[in-house]
């Protein structure tokens, strides 16, 4: 209830400011609502949403698989720890800074977007998994060695499960980063998707559509976050 009231309050403030300081660039709440109805009744917006979601699904899945596997392997086998140093060197580079390189390598289109989404999601997933895996308490390692648990079983039944809360923290940060990255990539180097939709409407001076695009980005980003939280609740049942 409080959330709904807050949304109503924000809308009311926007409308009040809009009425007090009329500006041709910023539409009224009613114009936005009208544009929303128009958009929802057209096929175009759904195609943009679907395209963005597909990009995030592919890029985020690749980032999850590689981030979790590499995090576990590099923490498990300390001989490989130098590889982590190289990964750490790439980490501070924001995904958006990779866009020109991505366009040169992959061209304008899906491959570039997958790559940018991958970069956005990979680092938080990898780092969280790695730090989870290196913090396995000695007592678990001792118990496993006493029971002569095989390396494979240790990896799958102890290390992976111990790291799951860390992995989910990484996934939750990663999905947010991935969503921001896909929008950024679409703003610059794509011909479809919600980012492209905003960019297109900027060129057409359709501010109401830009705002609708932004609202949709917020709502979908939030839903993706909730989806990961839901999966976490269903998987980590022992707490």
């Amino acid at each position, binding site marked *: 209830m409080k959330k709904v009231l807050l949304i109503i309050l924000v809308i009311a403030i926007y409308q009040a400011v809009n009425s007090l300081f009329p500006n041709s660039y910023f539409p009224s709440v009613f114009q936005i609502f009208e544009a929303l109805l128009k958009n929802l009744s057209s096929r175009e917006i759904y195609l943009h949403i679907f395209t963005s979601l597909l990009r995030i699904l592919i890029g985020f899945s690749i980032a999850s698989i590689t981030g979790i596997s590499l995090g576990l392997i590099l923490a498990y086998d300390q001989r490989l720890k130098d590889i982590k140093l190289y990964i750490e060197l790439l980490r501070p580079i924001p995904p958006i800074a990779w866009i020109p390189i991505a366009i040169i390598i992959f061209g304008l289109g899906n491959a570039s977007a997958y790559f940018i989404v991958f970069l956005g999601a990979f680092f938080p997933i990898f780092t969280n998994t790695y730090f989870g895996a290196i913090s396995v308490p000695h*007592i*678990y390692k*001792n*118990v496993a*060695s*006493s*029971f*002569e*648990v095989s390396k494979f*079983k240790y990896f799958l*039944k*102890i290390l992976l*499960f*111990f790291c*799951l809360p860390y992995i989910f923290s990484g996934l939750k940060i990663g999905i947010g980063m991935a969503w921001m990255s896909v929008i950024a990539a679409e703003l610059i180097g794509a011909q479809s998707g919600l980012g492209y939709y905003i960019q297109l409407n900027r060129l057409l001076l359709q501010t109401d559509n830009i705002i609708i695009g932004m609202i949709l980005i917020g709502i979908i980003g939030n839903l993706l976050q909730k989806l990961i939280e839901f999966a976490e609740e269903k998987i*980590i*049942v*022992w*707490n």
Partner: protein
Amino acid sequence: MIHIKNISFNYPAGNHIKEKPVLTGINFSIKDGEFVSVLGRSGCGKTTLANILAGYLTPQTGEVLINNIKVKKPGKNRIVVNQENDLFPWMTVWENMKLANSNEKEINKYLKLVNLKDYKQYFPNHLSGGMKKRLSLARALVVNPDFLILDEPFDSLDYRIREVLHIELDRIFSSTKKTTLLVTHDIDEAIFLSDRIIILGGTPTSVVGQFDINFLHPRELSIRKTKKFVQYKDKIKYSYV
């Protein structure tokens, strides 16, 4: 038969920390089917000794022989029940047991022995402190080790639960006759459960005394009020100080 021969252990030097000798010249043996307690003050190196016996730590000098085989690394012939909770929280009671031994008949047997047969599908976080300790014990027993090492297993539990678990442990020991070493700082616990008590003391720590405890197993809590028990306690207290 377990032989602990001339064990010495130093914690290595680290940043701003000098090398610290913890154990020196520890010698004693444990007969098959004997329950021995190692008694010593907190921080005297009891857990270090337990870790050496388990194979988690390698001593600077000396060796541990279990049935004339030298301990070189951890293994199923000696299992430790730890002071800390050593159960895997993401595994159910059944899965924790199955990690140690996949024989379902054996798992059922030991879950029954510790009265946890009805809790197979529970996660450790849903069990009480006492139940967790019983599960750790059952998991240790299910692999049928030659030697059971109990490292202050009841330390974190309150007095009432400890008493109940002492009775249960004694009952289990009486029925399995498993060679057991209990590491503790609790004199009453050591006398109640053991056939023999080894006292650790000094700096660095060495064996400073040994006492045979002559009570038949299984034991009743009432023996704690007997004159013999009190005499054992006084004797140990004096050698302990």
